[in-house]
């Protein structure tokens, strides 16, 4: 296995040398590079482990930082409503900037590397997460607030015990959208000089099997992280509020799938 890896490694470097005496079908397939070499991919899946972990690291760090910052912004603007348009505007402009441009704009400031990629990706997640926290908090029914006040809660208690728990579905919805898009956008982190699946694709840009494998891993990562967040929410919110935004097909089953598939993709 190790010997096979050693002979095959240079081939997958794209422009690198081809093996002169192909000894099996998989090697032939990679040398010809006319289609996706499933056999080779299965045998050599270990070479994609490091890029996948780098990719995952970038995504998790960006979403965690993004959530922390957006959460702080949302709490800050919760009782100071006049801050909301400003925060929405700033995060909106950041979101409009193409990621590849943002990566390159940061290069002279923060240099090439994972840090630059994470900063840019973090800035990217702010808009979606911030907007969803704000929406979630403002969708809290007035009756729930009144009930909390009636029980003698302070503003702080009201926020942490009533408003935030009731806003969890919207907040998690924002996290899911941010996570899924970050997994996809992180493929462009190569332009910030970071690694990950994008670097793997870019460095072997003509290698068909590599492109398909990396693309498939990225999509799978998005699906798995999305599902994990969904399950986390399901555990967190057992009392689930009924707030259907769109009248859906009847039946529990369809409802479950609708929630699993995720929040409806409209931006306000």
């Amino acid at each position, binding site marked *: 296995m190790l010997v096979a890896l050693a002979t095959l490694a240079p081939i997958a470097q794209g422009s690198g040398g081809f093996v002169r005496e192909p000894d099996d079908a998989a090697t032939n397939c990679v040398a010809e590079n006319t289609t996706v070499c499933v056999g080779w991919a299965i045998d050599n899946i270990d070479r994609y482990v490091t890029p996948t972990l780098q990719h995952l690291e970038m995504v998790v760090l960006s979403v965690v930082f993004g959530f922390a910052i957006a959460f702080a912004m949302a709490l800050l603007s919760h009782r100071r409503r006049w801050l909301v348009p400003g925060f929405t505007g700033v995060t909106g*402009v950041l979101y*409009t*900037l*193409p*990621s*590849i*441009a*943002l*990566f*390159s*704009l940061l*290069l*002279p*400031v923060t240099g090439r590397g994972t840090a630059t990629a994470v900063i840019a990706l973090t800035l990217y997640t702010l808009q979606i997460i911030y907007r969803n926290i704000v929406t979630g908090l403002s969708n809290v029914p007035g009756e729930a607030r009144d009930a909390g006040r009636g029980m003698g809660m302070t503003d702080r208690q009201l926020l942490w015990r009533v408003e935030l728990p009731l806003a969890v579905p919207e907040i998690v919805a924002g996290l899911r*959208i941010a996570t*899924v*898009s970050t*997994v*996809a*956008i992180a*493929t*462009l982190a*190569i*332009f910030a000089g970071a690694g990950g*699946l*994008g670097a793997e*694709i*870019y460095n072997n*840009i*003509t*290698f*068909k099997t590599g*492109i*398909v494998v*990396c*693309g498939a891993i*990225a*999509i799978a990562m*998005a*699906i798995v992280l*999305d599902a994990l967040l969904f399950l986390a929410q399901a555990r967190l919110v057992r009392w689930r509020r009924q707030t259907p*935004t*769109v*009248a*859906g*097909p009847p039946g529990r089953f*369809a409802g479950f*799938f*609708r929630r699993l*598939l*995720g929040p*409806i*993709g*409209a*931006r*306000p």
Partner: protein
Amino acid sequence: MTLPLASVVDSFTGAIDFIFSTREAVGGGVQVGGLEQVWDLMAKQIEVSALALAVALALALPIGLYLGHRGTGELLAVAIGNAGRAIPELALIAFMAAFIGLGVFPLTIALMVLGIPPILTNAFVGIRQVDRDAVEAARGMGMTELEVIRRVELPLAVPTIMTGVRTAAINIVATATIGPLVGVVTLGDFIINVNVYGDEGVLAGAILVALLALAVELLLAGVQRLLTPRGLALQREATRATA
């Protein structure tokens, strides 16, 4: 942390200079940069983006409107919208180059794939959110189904639909930046071919792409304002005022 402020300023000044005046390429020989080349590449990027957006609109809008009007296919509309976000841009472009070939056609297909999900999903959601009473009233006035869509549902859904179109346009313009990977020389050429244009070229490319995206966003916001029915805009202002 202290930022190397002087060098950052130098970089940006150099990038501005790159945009306005030509210089010798890093490898020597040819002249690069300058307004003429900038305009050429930007025109190319606008051209492929507009083409891709038009195709995406032509395909996704009718389907979204139809499904929304019928009230069926919610799972499909939502699934497409969410799946669209998971498509890794670089993998998509590289896939097109490797399996279909170089040129405007594969790039347009790739960009169209990115544009369809937000347009379709938002068209569906926008139509579904139209007040059912308004639709019933329209039917009561004797409108045909097509008239209901065209004269009632579509105008009322403009804000949501246009939001989807804006998202799609921004995604398309942004991703058109890596067009050079499929052989279409857009502004991304400055960013990708650092060996030709140098670091200042990369930064210039980034500035230009960012400005282009902001311009597209502003332009479409203007279009949205024009398309939104006056009554709807007034009603929104009124609710904002009382909120």
